[in-house]
Structures are given as structure tokens and as C-alpha cells.
């Protein structure tokens, strides 16, 4: 193959939850890749399966959720079926994560110096004092003012925005090549969100770190992402370069989402111009999952499920293309 190998390759990933009333398929056969240093935005309504996909990549699906099929590869090496201990060595070092509510991501009982030092020393042979020096560098890098005075503070002594910077420092501590950032600014003040996104973007560009950025904020996607994946009911509706998806959305669902190009700070839900709601996992219709809400629905949509196929600059799963 001529194309360079992607950093992350997800093929036909399925995530299911066994429940008393049968198995729920929360992520249904999705495939995508992320290139080195690339920012992939992931959007979609609440419950679309964005967080589950991120958790599966880093190997931290909460039981009883489990990967029911497909493959996840990092540099061509399968990582979805690794023993716990081997996957642990990849976490933090190869793939970092920032979760949905960063404000509670820090252990309240430990100084941030301790949390940084333990992370650094988990992945690199360093003396405690070397690790401490590195921790200080990291705090400086994420823009904590007077970092040397703040190193031995406890999480509750930081404001939300500052705590978020500490979380980013922790996620970047071992220079991972991919960061899964799951709504990293949702819990923050609107005035701070843009700063944090800018910081994340700049740090990742400086280190060549790729990012899977899950967000509801189309403005952030437009400014930050190289490509964007639109998820709906556990499937990918459309994926492609950010300009193509935003300006020439193909999938009727993407159209609805992009009804207008919003300014930064406007969550997707407020813009949604599509009637109805995403179906529950137990009630996903036959054929295209979007068919009950689709303005352009026709026969085939009700019976056959569309796969992702190239259309224009992007890949779309819709029988219109």
C-alpha cells in the first residue's frame, strides 16, 4: 500500500451490553482511522456512542459493556484483545485520555505533584526528583501561573480551568501519540472553554499528538479538527475533512446538525433542526437508523442498512449517494 499507515485504525467495531432483556448493541459496526498528528472531531447527539468508542480504544469500557466484534489497531498492532497488563502499558504512554468531566478527574486526597510524579514514573525510569522537575515543566507548559508554588497544592485549591490544565498535563505526561478527549470543556465556564481548547490544540501540534476530540460544539470542530465523524445511534453517518462535512454536508442528519454554522460556544442540541429524537438502543429501526426522522426517506431506507461510501470529499452512509 502506498498510503502511510494510520496511527489508529478501527475496523467494524461493535460494542454491546448484555442486559436482562437481551443484548444492546450500543456501537454497531463502525470503522474509521486517525493519522499521526491529526485531530478527528466526533459529534453526534447524546447517546450516539461517542464516549463508548473512546473508552473501547483505550481499553476502559465499563463492564458489562464489551467489545463484541471488530478490531482496533495502533500502528498496525491489534490492541483490542491485549491482556490487561499489556494494555495498561499502552494507556498513558501511547494513548492518553481526558474524560467527560475533567473536574472530578483528579484524586482529591493527593497533591497534584504526587499525581504527576506517579504518572511520569510509571512510564519512564526517573528518580523522584527528576520526575518532580518534569512535573514542573509540564505545569509550566499547560500555563499554570507560578507553577513551582502550585506544584504541592491539592486539586480543590485550583479553579475549574486550572484543574483542567492539570488534567491535560497528566494526560500528556508520557508524551502519548494519541489523546482521546471526551468533551474536555463541557464542565467549564464558557469563557474558559476556548482557552482550554486552544491550549490542547497547541500542545498537540507541538508534540505531533493526534487527538480524537468528542464534542457537541460545532464551533470547536470547525476551528480545531482536521476531519470530523458524525455519529448517529451507534453508527457513523458521515466522516470526512472538516470543510467538506461542514460546508457540503451530504447525510440528511449532518445537514440537520449543520443547519447553520454556529459560533463557538453553541452546543449542537440547540441547533438541531431535526424533529424527533434519536431512538433508544432497544428501538433502532430496520434499515437506516435515521429513517424515522429523515426528510428524504424512501423505500430502501426502511429495509436495507446503508454502509459508508465515498461521496464528494467524504464518506457517507446514506442511500441518496
Amino acid at each position: 500500500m502506498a498510503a502511510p499507515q494510520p496511527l489508529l485504525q478501527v475496523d467494524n467495531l461493535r460494542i454491546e451490553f448484555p442486559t436482562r432483556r437481551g443484548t444492546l448493541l450500543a456501537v454497531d459496526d463502525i470503522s474509521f482511522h486517525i493519522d499521526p498528528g491529526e485531530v478527528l472531531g466526533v459529534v453526534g447527539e447524546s447517546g450516539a456512542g461517542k464516549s463508548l468508542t473512546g473508552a473501547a480504544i483505550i481499553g476502559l469500557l465499563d463492564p458489562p459493556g464489551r467489545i463484541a466484534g471488530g478490531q482496533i489497531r495502533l500502528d498496525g498492532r491489534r490492541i483490542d484483545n491485549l491482556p490487561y497488563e499489556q494494555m495498561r502499558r499502552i494507556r498513558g504512554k501511547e494513548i492518553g485520555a481526558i474524560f467527560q468531566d475533567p473536574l472530578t478527574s483528579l484524586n482529591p486526597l493527593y497533591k497534584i505533584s504526587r499525581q504527576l510524579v506517579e504518572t511520569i514514573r510509571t512510564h519512564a525510569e526517573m528518580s523522584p526528583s527528576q520526575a518532580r522537575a518534569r512535573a514542573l515543566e509540564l505545569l509550566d507548559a499547560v500555563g499554570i501561573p507560578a507553577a513551582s508554588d502550585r506544584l504541592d497544592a491539592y486539586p480543590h485549591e485550583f479553579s475549574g480551568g486550572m484543574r483542567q490544565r492539570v488534567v491535560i498535563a497528566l494526560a500528556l505526561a508520557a508524551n502519548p501519540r494519541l489523546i482521546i478527549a471526551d468533551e474536555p470543556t463541557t464542565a467549564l465556564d464558557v469563557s474558559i472553554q476556548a482557552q482550554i481548547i486552544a491550549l490542547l490544540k497547541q500542545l498537540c501540534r507541538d508534540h505531533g499528538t493526534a487527538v480524537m476530540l468528542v464534542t457537541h460544539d460545532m464551533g470547536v470542530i470547525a476551528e480545531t479538527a482536521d476531519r470530523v465523524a458524525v455519529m448517529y445511534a451507534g453508527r457513523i453517518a458521515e466522516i470526512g475533512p472538516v470543510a467538506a462535512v461542514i460546508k457540503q454536508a451530504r447525510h440528511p442528519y449532518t445537514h440537520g446538525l449543520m443547519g447553520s454554522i454556529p459560533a463557538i460556544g453553541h452546543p449542537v442540541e440547540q441547533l438541531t433542526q431535526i424533529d424527533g429524537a434519536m431512538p433508544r438502543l432497544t428501538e433502532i429501526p430496520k434499515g437506516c437508523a435515521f429513517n424515522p426522522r429523515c426528510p428524504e426517506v424512501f423505500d430502501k431506507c426502511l429495509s436495507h442498512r446503508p454502509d459508508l461510501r465515498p461521496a464528494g470529499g467524504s464518506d457517507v452512509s446514506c442511500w441518496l449517494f
Partner: protein
Amino acid sequence: MAAMAAFILRRVFQAIIVMLVVSALAFVMFKFVGDPIAQMVGQDTSLQDRAALRERLGLNDPIIFQYLRYLGDVIQGDFGISFRTARRVDVLLVERLPATLELALVAAVFALAAGVPMGVYTGLYPDRWLSRVFQAVSLAGISLPTFFIGILLILFFGVVLGWLPTFGRGETVRIGWWSTGLLTLSGLKSVIMPAFTLGMFQLTLIMRLVRSEMLEVLRTDYIKFARARGLSNFAVHFGHALKNTLVPVITITGLQLGSLIAFAIITETVFQWPGMGLLFLQAIQFADIPVMSTYLILVAAFFVVINLVVDLLYYVVDPRLRLDRSLAT
């Protein structure tokens, strides 16, 4: 540090109030249960003599003066004379104190040493068969009455197998005024069954508490984030999760130490353990009010001191309580 000092002062103040209330209760018991004169004099003492004695002992003074005098005596360490043995109450209790404290301590150490690991294990691996065994054992520990466990133990290890002594403290060694059974073989053998009996309830309580706290904490974001940082299971489970379960565990264990001392009465009776609880029970049989009220004060004092220490430990464990450091940035 100012906040810390204020915190301690406030707690000490509260402790003093509690002790005043308890001493008032003890005094009321002293005052209204039984007639001390009748206990002190013979059948043939005349009414005049009784009245004179009453006057001399200050029993006709206003009640508040009598209480203050009682309080003064107590503060000076004068708890009166036992009706039953005619010996000083404080001497009696101090003789019995080591036996009870050693029993409670061994029981608490046993409950912690077994209960915390069992709780951690069942919290980490709720579905393994050993966890189910622990759960079943804990159900038994919570539902079986203390004396029943004690009697079963005596029957099995004492009578049938003959491995362990069924009553008493065994040989003791004196270290100053303290008499310890923990330094002799027979003393150690003697403490096993009573401590197990006394600690069993605490053990199950601690195990269940640690288990539910672990399950709770393991679901938190910071545990997920700790895993996402690649920390080892050991660091996640014991460095991050267990420490976050400690605040409630310390509270319960601390408070339970107080009830260990108080509930030692039953265990001491079953095993004829020569502690304060046994003394108290004998005192009840003889309406030996000075011993009873002093025991009350002493047990209350233990509770109060333990509470105070528990509060201070919170302070050490949880930095969020040290609010004097400013919320910067």
C-alpha cells in the same frame, strides 16, 4: 493552622459539655437510686445519728451544691467507695481497666486486620466465589448474637478440641500499674476467643463498609482517569481507591472502638473475663451505685476521646477539610 486550632478548641469544648451532662446523669443516679446512708450504717443506728450523718455528708444541701461537690470530687479523681467491696471505686476500676482495654484493642486490631482486606477483596472482585464466602460469613457475623458466637466457640475450641481456655485471662504480667496478658502464652491463648467474639460484629461492619465504599470509589472519574494514565492495578486499588474509602472507615472503626469497650460486658460475662464490664455487671446485681456511675463516666470519656481523635484523623486524611489554605486562582 488557625483553623485547625479553632477546630480542636471547638471539639474540646463540645467534649467538655458532653462530659458534664454525663456526670450529671451519673450524679442523679447516685442521688436518687438507693439511700447511701442505709448502705453505710448498720441496722441499729438511731434516727438522730442517721440525720447527723446526713447533715455531715452534706446530703441536706441544695442539690446544685451537691452536684458541684460531686463534680469537684470526680475531677480530683475521687469517685467514692464501692458499697459492695468497701474499696475505692477508682482503684477497683483501674485494676480492671487493662483487661478490658486489651480485649477491646485485640478485637479492634483483629476486626481491622481481617475486615479491611476482606472488604477490599469483595469490592474488587464481587463475583469471585471467595467474595461470596466472605459475604456469607459477614451475614452470620451480623445476625448471630455475640453470646451465641462465644458459646459456640467455647463448646468447639474449649470443650471438644480443648485447644483454648474457656474463661479468664490466663497469666498476667505487671508493667507498672498495668497488668498485661499479652506477654504470656496462656494470656495470649486466653484472649483469642473473647477477642474474636467481640470483634466479629466489627469485622463484618468494616468489611461491608470497605466493600461498598470500594465499589463506590471504583466508579469515580478519578479512578477511571488513574487507569487511563496507565497506573498499575496496585497503585489504582491501594494508592487511589483504598485511601478514598478511609474517611468513613476511620469514623466507623473509631466509633466502634467505643462500643467495643461498652459491649465488652457481654463478652466478658460469657468468658468470665475479669474486665470492667464484668465488674459493672456485678455492681448492678448489688446496686453498687458508685461503681455503676463511675463506669458510666469512664465509658463516656472513652467515647468522647475517641470521637475527638477520629475528628483529628479526618483532618489528616482529607485535605479538603483543611480549609484555612486559601482557594487560590
